[in-house]
């Protein structure tokens, strides 16, 4: 029988799946708005706009919850890569994804109660959740209340730089999501990590 450790509290799992659903909805509706008129697979513009607004507001709320809950629970510490040897550990993890994983090597840094994430994971998650997602959230809020956007920036309508940042940051989140979902299949079994995100128990 495999060894199991309890890693993820209920609030974190609830937030994770809520965030995942919202991000997927926002990605689909956001692409439908940005590429409007480009194809039949897109959500109709008016509907996409309404859903995007609602999901966007929900994301602001869930992101606020995430930040506050992380502070109160101390979970924020998990996102901080601990020196020394952070770069070395990142390199080892990258080499594992690029080579060792194909040979069936074990994970170089399996999760523990003290360190849920390997160094590479911690840095990427930190960048996404504390640098990129805030850009998406703030620019999205300006989009929602365009009266607060500057009238002009760089000689063009002030909403353009806001929209541009929103688009680029949103795209980065989508690219991260793709990789994140794929790396979710790299557990002991293909489904192990997905199961962990539901039960909270990590299987080794």
């Amino acid at each position: 029988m495999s060894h199991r450790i309890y890693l993820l509290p209920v609030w974190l799992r609830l937030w994770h799946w809520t965030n995942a659903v919202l991000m997927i909805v926002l990605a689909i509706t956001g692409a439908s708005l940005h590429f409007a008129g480009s194809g039949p697979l897109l959500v109709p513009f008016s509907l996409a706009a309404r859903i995007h607004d609602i999901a966007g507001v929900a994301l602001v709320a869930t992101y606020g919850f995430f930040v506050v809950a992380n502070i109160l629970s101390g979970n924020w510490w998990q996102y901080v890569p601990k020196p020394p040897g952070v770069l070395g550990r990142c390199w080892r993890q990258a080499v594992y994804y690029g080579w060792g994983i194909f040979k069936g090597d074990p994970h170089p840094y399996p999760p523990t109660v003290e360190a849920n994430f390997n160094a590479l994971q911690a840095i990427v998650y930190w960048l996404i959740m504390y640098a990129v997602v805030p850009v998406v959230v703030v620019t999205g809020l300006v989009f929602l209340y365009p009266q607060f956007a500057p009238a002009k920036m760089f000689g063009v309508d002030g909403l353009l730089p806001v929209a541009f940042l929103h688009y680029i940051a949103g795209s980065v989140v989508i690219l991260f999501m793709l990789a994140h979902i794929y790396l979710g299949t790299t557990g002991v079994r293909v489904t192990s990590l997905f199961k962990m995100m539901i039960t909270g128990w990590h299987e080794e």
Partner: protein
Amino acid sequence: MKSVTQSLFAFAVLAGVAVSGASAFAAEVKGAAPSDPALVEKIRQSNAACYGCHTEQGLKAPPRADLDLEKLRQLVHDPAQFDASNHAGMECTVCHGQGYKAFPHAAGAKQSISECGECHATKALRIETQFEASVHAKNFKEQFTCRTCHDPHAFRVAAKLGDPHKIVAQDNAMCVGCHNSDLRFALFSASVTPQKVRPDLDTLHAWLPNTRLHWQAVRCIECHTPTSPVKSLGMSHEILGKDKAEKNCVTCHSQETALATRLYRFAAENGTADLGFANAAILDSAYVVGATRNPIVDRTVGVLFGLTVAVLLGHGALRIALALIRRRRSS
């Protein structure tokens, strides 16, 4: 629009007068402001006589004691606004006739006020066909003249206004002047049986996301008119009711945006075109989701997306293949 046909007849009758008496202003009637200093001064003096009474100043300090101030209050104009209008440089009496030269004005002077078609005959003919099909003609044909919407003392055509924000402010004011005023709406709807109650604009447009933002950024006629079949008329005068109005957001919110040939028809291309944006002329005034896109950035994001998917699929396929090989070897 009872005026147009009548106007054409009146135009023919008055043609002789125009040739003989008003020939000094013929060039101005065609649109160009006069440049001859003597003529400019003559017009200024002539109009100053009218402004003596028909301005806020005239109302505050009437030059005569026998004026009906309540009536005058309805007939006050802003000289600065007129001087910025399409009709700037014209003498008031070109339209208002000789009956207004002296005070008291001649009996029946009001009936001699020129109709728009007397000068704008060709345009009026083209507009009339479109107007006949409009929702206004269906309900209030006899009450509608050009002046119902276009105040000849203030109106400026979009080509001269240039700035889309100014075009939107001016043109939407014409629509909401009635459609957001119970009093003014009732002036027209009173003739319809049963009398039409003014619908609430917000309720009517509840389906439209960011309604208020749309009203500030685009004209009502972007959605409430079809494409003009007449090339010389940028916008059709066939005002569409809610049933026929445009409801497909993508008409504007796409790279092939209709805004480029409508509101932004006269917007000059600006420097942002160098950044490779589609519909860059719009960017000076607005960011329109779906329309003001940068194809280079879109392609870059698309390539990154495709590469990521390809790498992940390739990585996964290789993992599966190698895992199967390992399993076979071990068994």
